[in-house]
């Protein structure tokens, strides 16, 4: 069943230790699957693909002539996390999000952290995610980052590291929820036997934190989507359906007297809270990008007047910048006077002279990333890049150092994955979701992305990655 050889030595494998023995929390799973013939596994995988197609669990790919709707491959072998490991992740994420929220509030208000010279002012002011329009603003209940999808990876040492904070519009949670529904049918008895934490109440928790933002007794909540051609449209409609709220596009909304209304068949209806899945600068052509056709003219003035709550609040991009990321451990210490429970990846900031020199001298060892890009775009994996790619990045870094950071190449952990007739190790990351309402909650599960190509470390769905169901054990 396992490919021979199965490499659990050069990377941390989630199921098998370096000596090839099964880790304790995976034992019941291995016991069960040992007795399943490979043909049966392949058939289960086939049924899974079919189920995804029938459920319309598709995402849209830009610039792809193959047709715009694609399925995110869901591998049937789950990624399992033990209760003790999870407790550590959960505590670390709560601490991190709490500190980042304080940081954003401080940056747009008192700027103590800049006055105390913990962070260089230029770094903040040159950040594309920094919105001057938010200066002096405190959002409803003082919460900026209501929904976060933090990317974690496990290095060879077995430790989890935070790779990205994703405080703007993180996607993928719908795949986590729908994947569980499918995998439940693949291994019907195993989940309860192993004590896997359920994730299905995510939509009601999400609705709770959204309603919490309004002081009305029964606030009207909506999900704002760029539209059906957006790559995450499935998720937007899925969440609206699951929460039982309206899914709106910009054209459905009008602003009058600093209030936001939906255009309905029986006239205008005021809306109080929007879970918006449109980037900050496209939200309102009057306040930000005047070219935006997706947004709602005037919505920002309604927001400032306190007549509508937006989640996440505009301006959170400041904490999502990859150069700011390098300072998060300092941010945690500064605001909480605690040591970070989750580690950062060592990060070289090209706008710092010393770091930049080091980066340019070690391009063949480092992963270089644009500070404001996402989705696996705008990056170079040094050890795997060609000479000319490295030269290109050298020029790019020199001409605009603020735009780049570099990190040592991590060895992402692996999970057995069904490839043809074998289980082979494939690299994965982990994206748990954190909700910030009356308190901070981490959903006991995650969107695990898997790089399906042998040896590949790029897990992004837009670049040939797949996914796995993530089981968090309660005991």
């Amino acid at each position: 069943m396992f490919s021979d050889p199965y490499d659990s030595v050069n990377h941390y494998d989630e199921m098998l230790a370096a000596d090839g023995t099964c880790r304790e929390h995976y034992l019941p799973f291995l016991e069960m699957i040992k007795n399943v013939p490979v043909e049966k596994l392949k058939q289960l995988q086939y049924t899974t693909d079919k189920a995804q197609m029938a459920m319309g669990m598709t995402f849209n790919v830009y610039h792809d002539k193959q047709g715009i709707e694609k399925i995110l491959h869901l591998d049937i072998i789950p990624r399992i996390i033990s209760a003790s490991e999870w407790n550590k992740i959960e505590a670390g994420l709560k601490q991190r999000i709490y500190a980042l929220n304080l940081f954003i509030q401080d940056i747009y208000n008192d700027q103590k952290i800049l006055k105390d010279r913990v962070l260089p002012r230029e770094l903040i002011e040159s950040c594309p995610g920094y919105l001057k329009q938010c200066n002096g603003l405190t959002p409803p209940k003082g919460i900026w980052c209501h929904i976060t999808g933090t990317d974690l990876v496990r290095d060879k040492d077995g430790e989890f590291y935070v790779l990205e904070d994703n405080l703007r519009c993180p996607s993928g949670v719908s795949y986590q929820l729908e994947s569980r529904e499918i995998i439940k049918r693949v291994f019907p008895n195993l989940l309860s036997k192993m004590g896997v934490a359920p994730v299905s109440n995510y939509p009601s928790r999400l609705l709770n934190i959204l309603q919490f933002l309004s002081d009305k007794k029964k606030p009207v909540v909506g999900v704002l989507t760029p539209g059906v051609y957006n790559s995450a449209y499935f998720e937007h409609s899925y969440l609206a359906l699951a929460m039982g709220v309206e899914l709106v596009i910009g054209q459905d909304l009008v602003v009058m007297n600093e209030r936001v209304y939906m255009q309905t068949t029986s006239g205008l209806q005021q809306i109080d809270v929007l879970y918006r899945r449109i980037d900050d600068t496209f939200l309102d052509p009057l306040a930000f990008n005047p070219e935006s056709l997706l947004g709602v003219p005037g919505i920002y003035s309604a927001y400032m007047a306190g007549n509508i709550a937006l989640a996440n609040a505009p301006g959170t991009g400041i904490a999502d910048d990859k150069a700011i990321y390098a300072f998060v451990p300092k941010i945690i210490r500064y605001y909480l006077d605690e040591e970070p429970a989750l580690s950062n990846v060592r990060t070289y900031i090209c706008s710092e002279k010393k770091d930049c020199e080091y980066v340019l001298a070690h391009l063949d060892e480092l992963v270089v990333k644009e500070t404001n890009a996402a989705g696996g775009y705008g990056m170079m994996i040094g050890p795997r890049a060609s000479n000319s790619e490295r030269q290109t990045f050298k020029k790019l870094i020199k001409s605009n150092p603020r735009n780049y950071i570099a990190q040592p190449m991590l060895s992402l952990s692996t999970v057995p994955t069904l490839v043809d007739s074998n289980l082979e190790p494939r690299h994965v990351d982990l994206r748990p979701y954190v909700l910030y309402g009356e308190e901070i909650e981490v959903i006991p599960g995650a969107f695990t992305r898997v790089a399906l190509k042998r040896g590949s470390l790029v897990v992004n769905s837009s670049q040939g990655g797949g996914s796995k169901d993530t089981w968090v054990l309660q005991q």
Partner: protein
Amino acid sequence: MLSRVANSVYWLGRYLERSENYSRFIDVNFNLMVDLPPNVKEQWEPLIRATGDYDLYIKNYDSFNREDAIYFLAFDENNPNSLYMSVSKARENARVVRENLTKESWEKLNEIYLYVKEGADKQVWKKEDCSQFFMDVKYGIQLLYGIAENSVARTVGWYFIHLGQYLERADKTSRILDVKYHILLPSADEVGSPLDFLQWTALLKSVSGFNFYRRFYGKIEPVNIVELLVLNKYFPRSVFFCLTNAEICLRTISGTTGKGYSNTAEKTLGALQSRLEYQDVNDVISSGLHEYLDALQVKLNNISDAIHDNFFKLNPNDMNQNNLQE
């Protein structure tokens, strides 16, 4: 309900009805051709005329052979009303308003779409017997209706879907009657012949009305067929039945009770419905059936426009932009 969403579910209703009609039309015509005597040529032209896309067809095809006709009606992506395009548009509308549908309804519709797409890939039109395919699609859509019947709440959205469905059905019934009646009537010398019987039977079957006709009217007579399709109170595909139910939907949507109307959509629809209510079949035929049906279709279009103006039109929000800048 959001105006944009109401627009989408209305068209969802129309496209689903269109898809089901096309599947049935093709299936019935295919079976009719199988029954034809050996010396009679297959007739696909009347069906293409009935769909209203005759001009488009002759622009792209040389003859009315079976393969071309079925391809055109079912799979041609250049024919905006082909089964494939209607199912795609129904699904696209459903996708836009997925949060308003039940999970089961969406998944069934998605399955139908994938099945039709697969049929296109497998080149179903080239098969010797493609009847099963169209029956499957038809039953798939009917199953979807059944699922919706027992799972969708009777809120405004439900009535918009059915408003679209009934108006589409009224339109299709009147079209197929118009075309078939004209082709069938001139063959006076063949009245009562087996071929004549087959043709009228096929017309009834293409609106699922054969069994009911037998029970209600008995012998096949053109005038009774006209009455069944236009004025019958009980037959769910008669124009009158469709208009009556469309009116109920519309009045539920606007919350109008009692007599009179509260908007122009109700006014145009109500006027047409009550006109039919007080007509008999001689009123329909006396001034020429074709003229009658032509006028009817114009009125149906007016109703659709009025619905659009009253419920779906959005105030472009850039207008407010100007207001704010003042």
